[in-house]
């Protein structure tokens, strides 16, 4: 489009976009404010924008019993996280391999998350957080691992069975989850897999597989055939060429697909709710803060739980924002 140049028009444009920002983030900002309020402030008749912030709600959601050194531990964890983020931001300036630093940060985070329950008396909601990490990681890795060769083959193969698989996948992508719930529930109870990580992971992989192969296929279509053909002339097998030559080229696409799979898995509510009891994820655990049919739940706790359950996802997506936006573009424009 022809660029708008008139200064007043530009101001109007930015005002409009700020309105969009407000429209998109206001509910989240309001909830974040609520999460730092006392019950009294949160239920005040006039909305309170200035108030004395408190971590009450967070400790109620995350801790079984508020311990005396809770604030100290909280500050300690916050300091460690802040240090890790700072290192991450300046990783390129540190005279070490950037990759090693990122892996180090990831490992440190994993250790903190894993061993936190031994330091502080964490509540069930924290276990749900761990469940979410395990289930989401497992589902994303398996989805992409089995989806990548399929997406590659679908991008290269010219026979009619490729079309059949693609169209079938498209149809299955759009079917409601409720239709599957009963079969999954009944069979998993019969074979004793109900309420296990492995069942939830495999089910999530399956329901997302149609989406995954479509998106991966779109990325593999952008890779010219000559790349792997030259490797195969040099004597590599098709699979070796795929693994050693094609995958590195298409890696940003694989990251984007993983991100989308993560999003869908993290959002899943109905299937996980029916298939788990102990091992439920954060999204399912959120329902305990809903309150009854006519009684709303405690606002600060609801808000704190909402922030805790959404923040990890927002951070991950914002870190990979570029791949994310590109992924939507490629997946849709090509597919």
């Amino acid at each position, binding site marked *: *489009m022809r660029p708008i140049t008139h200064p007043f028009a530009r101001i109007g*444009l930015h005002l409009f*976009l700020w309105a*969009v*920002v407000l*429209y*998109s*983030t*206001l*509910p989240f900002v*309001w*909830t974040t404010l609520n999460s730092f309020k006392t019950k009294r402030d949160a*239920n005040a008749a*006039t*909305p309170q924008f200035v108030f004395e912030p408190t971590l009450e709600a967070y400790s109620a959601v995350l801790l079984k019993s508020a311990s005396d050194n809770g604030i100290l531990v909280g500050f300690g964890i916050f300091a460690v996280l802040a240090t890790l983020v700072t290192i991450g931001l300046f990783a390129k300036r540190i005279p070490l391999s950037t990759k090693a630093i990122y892996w180090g940060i990831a490992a440190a985070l994993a250790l903190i998350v894993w061993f936190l329950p031994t330091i502080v008396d964490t509540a069930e909601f924290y276990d749900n957080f761990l469940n979410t990490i395990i289930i989401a990681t497992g589902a994303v890795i398996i989805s992409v691992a*089995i989806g990548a060769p399929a997406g*590659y*083959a679908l991008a*290269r*193969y*010219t026979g009619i*069975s*490729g079309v059949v*698989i*693609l*169209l079938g996948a*498209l149809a*299955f992508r*759009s*079917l*409601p989850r*409720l*239709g*599957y*719930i*009963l*079969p999954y529930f*009944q069979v998993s109870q019969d074979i004793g897999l109900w309420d296990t990580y492995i069942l939830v992971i*495999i089910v999530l992989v*399956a329901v997302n597989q149609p989406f995954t*192969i479509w998106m991966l296929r779109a990325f593999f279509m952008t890779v010219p055939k000559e790349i792997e053909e030259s490797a195969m002339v040099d004597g590599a097998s098709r699979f070796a060429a*795929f693994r050693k030559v094609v995958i590195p080229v298409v890696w940003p696409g694989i990251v984007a697909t993983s991100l989308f799979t993560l999003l869908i898995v993290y*959002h899943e509510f109905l299937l996980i709710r029916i298939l788990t009891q102990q091992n439920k994820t*954060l*999204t399912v655990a*959120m329902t305990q803060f*809903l309150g009854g049919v006519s009684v*709303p739940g405690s*606002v600060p706790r609801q*808000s704190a739980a909402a922030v805790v*359950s959404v923040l990890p996802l*927002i951070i991950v*997506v914002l870190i990979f*924002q570029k791949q*994310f*936006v590109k992924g939507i*573009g*490629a997946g*849709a*424009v090509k597919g």
Partner: protein
Amino acid sequence: MKRKTFLQFTAPSNIVMLVLLVFPLLYALWLGMNFMTFRTINEPVFVGLDNFKTILNDPAFWAALRWTLVIVVVAVSAHMIIGFVIALALDQVKGRMRAFYLAASLIPMIVVPLVGTIIFKQLFDPPGLFAWAYRSVTGNIFVFNATTMKQLILVHTIWIVTPWAIVLFFAGMQTIPQEQVDASSVDGANRWQQVRHVVIPHLRPLIILTALIAVMDMFRLFDNVFVLTRLNPVYASDTVLTYNFRTAMTVQRLGLGNAIAIILVITIVIALIPLLYVSYRDQIKDR
């Protein structure tokens, strides 16, 4: 690529989809012809097509279907128009600010739908921001009833899906060849004419695709209606899926619930035929 290699490469993915998507659907079809509750889940009683008859004669089902169709029509068209306008505006900004605006407008789609609904509802609950603004402006208390609840569901649904349209259209606009824009400027086209004759024709395939995908996602609307209404029948806001959930989980007519799901599957597949046809043609053309 040879057929054998193709089958080897796709085997893991195909096996997973066959075992966990195709077979369960067939099994679900069979369960839809049985009477069972959670207690009798292992001794279903075969009732043939009775479940399907019961549903098709239930006015609540038709009400739910009608309401779902209203959501589909309103939300799909509204989110595409809003998304298109925002994408046009984003296209006018460059650099850091563009990344910031884009990131902010993605938030509704990243936030878990269930949680997003909870935080959205907080604005409208008694101590919330909107409830307060409404009270200040009109002097009346904002109450949830069948009408306001339906409006809220529509607004929230649009809020959730708009980011998809923004990003899709924005990505599409980046692929418009600059020569076309320049040529139309030379011809003296104003901005509206450029949008009308350059941008929209270029985005047409994308617009159709977005609409179709949104239609099939809207049919599956569950999480936000579930949280907003808490399945309270007072609001008369059942979509097909919440009606399905109520029948299967609350009333415990599991077979009946499955029959509803099967009917919905058939409806969606029929609604999908244009999309399937378009992509079939594309796939064949590519070969």
